[in-house]
């Protein structure tokens, strides 16, 4: 057994145990780790934002750039400054401007991108090709998948009563959904256990030196 003499390994080990103590119940050790975590991460986030976003996207083009279009950046700065309106009761509504721009930009992006990235890809993946029917087993499997896709979509059909054929299809859709959720769940269990093994290795190997 070779207990680590590195103080940083000790700190990491103590924090690891402090987080795990949460599984028993809330306690001062967890609270300590939680508050330290939040403080560190928000400081880290501020530094990342400053150096990865503000400096390259705002400061560098404005201070060192030569392109005349760089002055357009003053517009988002102005919009961004409006969000400080929330510090005043009278002008708190100014925040609606940055919100309106962000949401408009998002909505504009998402419409064409959703078609390209989600819908087309899913449709072309579902339509059976020759390769997908190469053997009877493959053909049956892909047919089952096709039924899975269609019945699931009917479950998300909102504007009609789920009765008759639509009702039966939506009901089948729920069964398919549950089977799929189960598969995802089962698939993830082992991956999560391996995370724990990783932490245990740190504690027992890096820190306490019990295992090699």
């Amino acid at each position, binding site marked *: 057994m070779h207990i680590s003499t590195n103080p940083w390994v000790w700190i990491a080990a103590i924090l690891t145990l402090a987080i795990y103590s949460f599984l028993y119940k809330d306690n001062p050790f967890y609270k300590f780790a939680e508050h330290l975590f939040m403080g560190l991460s928000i400081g880290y986030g501020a530094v990342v934002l400053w150096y990865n*976003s503000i400096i390259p996207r705002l400061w560098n083009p404005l201070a060192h750039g030569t392109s005349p279009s760089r002055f357009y950046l003053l517009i988002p700065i102005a919009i*961004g400054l409006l969000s400080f309106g929330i510090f005043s009761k009278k002008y708190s509504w100014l925040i609606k401007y940055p919100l309106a721009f962000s949401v408009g930009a998002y909505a504009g992006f998402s419409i064409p991108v959703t078609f390209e990235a989600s819908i087309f890809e899913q449709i072309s993946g579902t339509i059976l090709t020759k390769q997908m029917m190469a053997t009877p087993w493959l053909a049956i499997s892909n047919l089952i998948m096709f039924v899975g896709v269609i*019945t699931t979509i009917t479950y998300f059909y909102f504007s009609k009563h789920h009765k008759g054929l639509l009702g039966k299809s939506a009901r089948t859709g729920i069964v398919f959904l549950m089977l799929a959720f189960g598969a995802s769940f089962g698939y993830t*269990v082992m991956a999560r256990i391996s995370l724990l093994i990783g932490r245990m290795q740190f504690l027992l190997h890096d820190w306490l030196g019990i295992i090699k």
Partner: protein
Amino acid sequence: MLKKQIPLAITFITGVIIVITFFIPHPPFGRLQQDALTWYSVIFGFTMLLGVDSLVRFHYRKLRRREKGWWFSIIFYGGFLLSFITGVVSEVRFGDAFNINSSFMYFYNTILIPLQSTMFALLAFFIASASYRAFRARNIDATFLLVTAVIVMLGRVPVGYMLWHKLPNLTSWILNVLQLGPMRGIMIGIALGTVAMSLRLILGIERTYLS
């Protein structure tokens, strides 16, 4: 007008312009999407300050009123100042806060990373407790979930192969066929729902975010 109509007009105009420019590569339209992203990140930077302000004030209140557990707020401030100051110092010393030898990255690797991975690893316990409850199948739907979960779980470990040598094959069939179909259905639904919502946003029908 200033509080409602103009924000709605901003959403409408921004949305429509960005949809149209998706199809026009010609300058200046072709780069508008990229510009909008830059604008968004600049605006995000300003609101991030609001977020930091909110959290810092939350803890300040706790400290000032000596609320229960107030001294943990000191830990919060300590952590915040530690990473923020080392970030600035590292930038000055190395010209880059993310330099591998900087104290900023040292704190990141030795304190923040273990905290993150331990928090993440809590999932091993939670997935066990969630499984326990899911496995007491409450109704027929939960039973379906249970069946595939157990098969896939066993099919991915050696014990599964020992129980029945075809279990790994069945597992991959479940993952590639039974799982993929409904997941595609969910994605198509979400995609159409997203487009419908985006249209409602641009048209000003959906306006909760402006209240």
